[in-house]
């Protein structure tokens, strides 16, 4: 290995690591606010990339139909839940309508825009919009009524959601893989290092998102409310912060981050309906390494995972997944030794 190969691998690793970092941040975010270990995070990645790929062909992506289906289920659940609670048909219908409104609007736009062959950026924005709307719906349908369950039950639910979303991905996208066009065809040679436009966009998007998240949590009331929920749910509730609204908002953000990651990773690799899982899990390894609690920790760990993966695929390409996923054991060992005592279960 010489310097140029090493620098290429490093750059490659950092680019992928940036995407893992986004997913790791989303995982930490969801866990701290809702105590859900969100395994299906990766499905949003695949959904995002594949939605854009189908838009490229001028057809209506399957995610739109699935979105309508999911919104229908969520609206029905809302309707029956409210009805059982208040016995007031008007309130119940209103709640169901609220559930349906955004998905209907977004789907409508998507169905209208699909055959128009808009420029890539518009299609990308639409794809993100479609997938982002999944967030609150998934929360409503799968998690909301289990709010007070233990993290363990929520984790098993996550696995169920992951199964369902992967299978539905197969139904709506088929088994075929897609590779998206690059957003920016730049090739920049700095000495021996070649910088691609895609890498620059990925880096910029990651940094921008991290800054935005930081601003949101530090400066906005809603963000502070989420932090309050993360620290103490009961306390936040007593202060009038709805933990359900917090959950829906968090899942919206997670879905947005997932879709964005899908767009970023789409041009560098062929995405299949089930590719999201492994991509998401690598973000996940980073989040776990950071104890599911620290954002900067997850960022650093994710970049590290990306770099390890890049060098691993150069030296022992068959074993790169083995290396990445075995890496978590020593990390956990260190955490275990540092924590020193057994935590009381929640």
């Amino acid at each position, binding site marked *: 290995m010489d310097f140029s190969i090493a620098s290429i691998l490093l750059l490659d690793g950092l680019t992928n690591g940036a995407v893992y970092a986004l997913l790791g941040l989303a995982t930490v975010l969801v866990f701290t606010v809702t105590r859900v*270990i969100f395994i299906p995070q990766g499905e949003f990645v695949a959904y995002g990339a594949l939605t854009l790929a189908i838009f490229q062909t001028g057809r209506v992506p399957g995610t739109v139909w699935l979105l309508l289906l999911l919104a229908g289920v969520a609206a029905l659940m809302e309707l029956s839940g409210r009805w059982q609670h208040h016995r007031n048909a008007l309130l119940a219908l209103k709640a169901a309508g609220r559930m349906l409104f955004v998905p209907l609007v977004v789907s409508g736009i998507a169905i209208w825009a699909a055959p128009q062959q808009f420029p890539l950026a518009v299609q990308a924005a639409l794809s993100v919009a479609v997938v982002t709307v999944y967030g609150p719906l998934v929360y409503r349908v*799968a998690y909301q*009524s*289990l709010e007070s*369950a*233990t*993290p*363990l*039950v929520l*984790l*098993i*639910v996550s*696995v*169920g*959601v*992951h*199964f*369902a*979303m*992967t*299978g*539905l991905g*197969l*139904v709506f996208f*088929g*088994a075929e893989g897609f590779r998206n066009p690059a957003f920016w065809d730049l090739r920049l040679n700095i000495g021996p290092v070649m910088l691609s436009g895609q890498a620059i966009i990925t880096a910029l998007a990651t940094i921008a998102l991290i800054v935005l998240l930081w601003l949101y949590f530090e400066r906005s009331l809603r963000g502070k409310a989420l932090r309050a929920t993360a620290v103490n749910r009961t306390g936040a509730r007593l202060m009038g912060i709805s933990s359900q609204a917090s959950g829906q908002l968090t899942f919206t953000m997670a879905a947005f981050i997932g879709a964005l990651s899908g767009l970023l990773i789409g041009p560098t690799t062929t995405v299949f309906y089930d590719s999201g899982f492994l991509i998401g*899990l690598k973000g*996940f*390894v980073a989040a*776990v390494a950071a104890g*599911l609690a620290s954002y900067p920790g997850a960022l650093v760990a994710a970049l590290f995972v990306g770099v390890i993966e890049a060098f691993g695929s150069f030296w022992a390409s*068959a*074993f790169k*997944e*083995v*290396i*990445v*996923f*075995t890496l*978590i*054991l020593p990390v*956990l*060992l260190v*955490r*275990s030794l540092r*924590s*020193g*005592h*057994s*935590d*009381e*279960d*929640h």
Partner: protein
Amino acid sequence: MKNLQNMGLLVLALAIPLIAVLPLPDFWITQLNYIGMYSMTVLGLVLLTGVGGLTSFGQAAFVGIGAYTTAWLTLNTGMSPWLTLFVGMGLTAGSALLVGLITLRMSGHYLPLATIAWGLSLYYLMGNLDALGKYDGLLGIRSLSIGDFDIGQGRPFFVLTWVLLLAFAAALLHLLDSRAGRAIRSLKGGSQMAEAMGISTFRYKVTIFVLAALFASVAGWLLAHFQRTVNPSAFGLKMGIEYLFMAVVGGVGHVWGAIVGAGLIRVLEDQLQVLLPRLMGTSGSYEVIVFGIALVMVLKYLPDGLWSLVGRHLPRRPRAVDWQHAAALPERDKPDAGALVLDVRKARMQFGGLVAVNDISFQIHAGQIVGLIGPNGAGKSTTFNLITGVLPATSGEVVYRGATISGLNSRNIARKGMARTFQHVKMIPDMTVLENVALGTHTRGTKGVLSAMLRANRTEERQLFREAQRQLERIGMGEYLHEQAGNLAMGPQRLMEIARALCADPALLLLDEPAAGLRHQEKQALAGVLRQLKLEGMSILLVEHDMDLVMQICDHLVVMEFGTLLTQGPPAQIQQDPKVRAAYLGTDH
């Protein structure tokens, strides 16, 4: 309850030979073979997840270790499958031990996460190693045989698998109904109570994780020789999740739920794999959609699984009392009357800048009831936690019967003969009162997991139950023996905790607000019990708010306010003390 489980075993034992001779189509025998092997793995999850409250997505990986070990060894070294079984189990135990030791000290969700990563990396390892045939796996594994008799297929294999399964189920039922089993059942409720009973929660967590992995390993050994080929796809994360799914659907808390779940999922999967692709028009594993949605629905609407629908209609029968003639447990030597039992010397607890306990000193002598009182927030509970080892003291020393115990954890302090109750009752609601109280005898028994599974622990079990019954009768709860603990009212629950503490044969009893939530009559009964204990030479430290009770029964009072010692002395003197009155009622200065 016990009789019924034995009945289940009997039914199964009768059904095995019957099915083997019935003219069932071969297809169903094959299905039953798979169900038996799956059930074996799921049985491990019942122990781990349902009983112990831990979760693993990596059971399939352990099945894989068992399968690949025997496949590789029989193909490459010609070793007998009957030997490779144990090699596989050894390898499985080693890797489970490693993963368990690393993750089980941390909170509950790290184990499932680690098993996900573990399952994935093992899958890719199997799929990429040349020696293991990469993704094609290993072919041509020999069938199991005894001498020249092939028992690796069809009906003989069915008998082998189900007899093994039956043996494992019996062993598990025996385990759960034993000293070790009660300790395992206490894991789910958090470690504090279990540790206070002298139970090493970490050790038991690792033990059940390894045991569950071993069940999976045996299933893998069977699978390899039944299919006569192994490849990574049967041992991936998806399969690991499916095992957990079987457990959850069947009823993760019940041994029989494992078989119900495995059976249902196996049959369902088989049907769906044919039906769904036909429905969709293309091939693909669409059954995961149904499984995923079903998993969420089951957790939402039937969290105890399908078996609970059957189980809740089965009558519960009280345990047969067979311990009247058991030998008494040996007792530790007690301090002489009046000897110094506990000496707290300048104990201090600081949380950052806040001094919760400020250099508190007091003593307890044998046969004395000492009351620790003070207004809310005075630091009584923190002091209590310092003595019992729940919190490490910032400075100062606690000496118990001449030996320093500060720095020891609550488990080791409990083993030295200091027993406690909790301010908020901590018990296992679905065990009987007798079983809950028997938990207190943990440190006085020695029989472990293996002897429990083999039923070699009967003599000791009888001794433990005899002691539990004796202590329950001592505090007047003799008629509640077989009641479910969760059904008790607050008063009896608190008395049950005292009986449990007494089972540890303590020289010092620490009671944290035993009268809270009790009615007047129950309080009088409690006072009677405590006086009786004192007469028998017991030393007691009592944290209590009920002044009537405290003044009635205590010999000595320690009054705390804002973390500091206000005063101490006999009750009559404390009652007259202006400082104490000021602390409780406020005064004009």
